[in-house]
Each structure stands twice: as structure tokens, then as C-alpha cells.
């Protein structure tokens, strides 16, 4: 079972460059999330989606954009990369309800120099 798949696993960007982090899930989950995890820290929510065509901001949305055209895919876009965006990015999906477990991908490690 694939679960949640993230690509790429690693990426180095120069300041000002753009990129899209890909996320796909095959569990037919309506809820999808993007988190960032800085060294020694927990997870901070960037954006989330409760279904195709619906997205909303999390705690730290500045500098990012998302789209949700299908149930399966939830890409995260960085338009003008900044050093502050150096982090590990995790995509997750879940069923409906705050008690539903999150299923995480294995992350994308991004370095902006």
C-alpha cells in the first residue's frame, strides 16, 4: 500500500527560485495537510484541505500556495524561496473528524541558500 507519497525527497533551491512539492494519497481521504518541521521542533500547519476545490490557511501560510483539484493530489507551491523556508515538509491525509489519525508521507527536505 502506497499511502501518502511525497516527491522529491530532497531539494536545494537558490533564493528567489520557485518549486512545487508534490503529494498524492491513495486512501480516498478527503482531508489533506501540509506541515513543516524545523530542527528540534514539532509540526506547524501550513495549509490544509477538506476536499477537492477547498483549501484553507494554517498557522504559517506566508510564502506558500496550494491547490486541490482532485481528491488524490495536494501540491504545495513555493513562489520565491527564502532561507526561512529551509525545513522538512510533510504532507498528510486523514478521514473526517479531529479524532481521525493522520497518515504522513516521508517528507521533503528543502534547503534554500
Amino acid at each position, binding site marked *: 500500500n502506497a499511502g*501518502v507519497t511525497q516527491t522529491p525527497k530532497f531539494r536545494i533551491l537558490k533564493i528567489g527560485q520557485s518549486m512545487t512539492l508534490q503529494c498524492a494519497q491513495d486512501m480516498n481521504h478527503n482531508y489533506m495537510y501540509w506541515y513543516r518541521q524545523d530542527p*528540534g*521542533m*514539532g509540526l*506547524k500547519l501550513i495549509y490544509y484541505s477538506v476536499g477537492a476545490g477547498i483549501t484553507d490557511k494554517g498557522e504559517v501560510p506566508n510564502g506558500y500556495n496550494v491547490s486541490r483539484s482532485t481528491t488524490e493530489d495536494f501540491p504545495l507551491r513555493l513562489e520565491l524561496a527564502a532561507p526561512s523556508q529551509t525545513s522538512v515538509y510533510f504532507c498528510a491525509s486523514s478521514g473526517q473528524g*479531529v*479524532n481521525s489519525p*493522520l497518515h504522513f508521507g*516521508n*517528507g521533503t527536505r528543502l534547503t534554500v541558500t
Partner: protein
Amino acid sequence: TQLLEQSPQFLSIQEGENLTVYCNSSSVFSSLQWYRQEPGEGPVLLVTVVTGGEVKKLKRLTFQFGDARKDSSLHITAAQPGDTGLYLCAGGRVSFGNEKLTFGTGTRLTIIP
């Protein structure tokens, strides 16, 4: 403001010892989840507790949700090297009609063989 504080932040103990990790908040949560994250991977759900005072056991791991649903603890008996990892608590609550899951700061546990 970090809603969920975990303590200790780092813990290194010998194999066979017991330990307790704490997750505290001033806010009330409808549920509390515990995840374990290993290097290079996404977090994986260990347990969800939803009732104040609830105790759940998962082999050598015992999870407790505080009576007031503001705190939780994870107790590991006879720790083994395989328990090494980052432990994250996550509190679920409904805010302004939206369901939100907030992650704690994390406890990095190392079990020394």
C-alpha cells in the same frame, strides 16, 4: 504561543529503564493523539485518547488523558532501543467551526543499549 508543551525535550536512558513523557496545555482538547517519528520518516500514530481520565495500553506503552482533557502522559516500561525516536502529542479541538489538530513541541528519546 505554543499550545502544547512537551517535557522533557530530550531524554536519554539505558535499556530496561522506565520513563514518562508529558504533554501539557492550558487549553481543553476533545482528543489527544500520540505519534512516534523515526529519522527520515513521517510520524506514525500510536494511540488516540478521547475521554478525560482514559488510560490506554499498547504493550509496554501506557497513555493517559488528564481528567480535565488538558494534558496527557506516555509511560514506557522497560525501554528498548526500538523505542528510540521523536514522540509527538497532538491535541484535537473544534475552533470556529473548523476542526484543528495542534502538535506539541516533541520529546526526542534515545535508548542506550
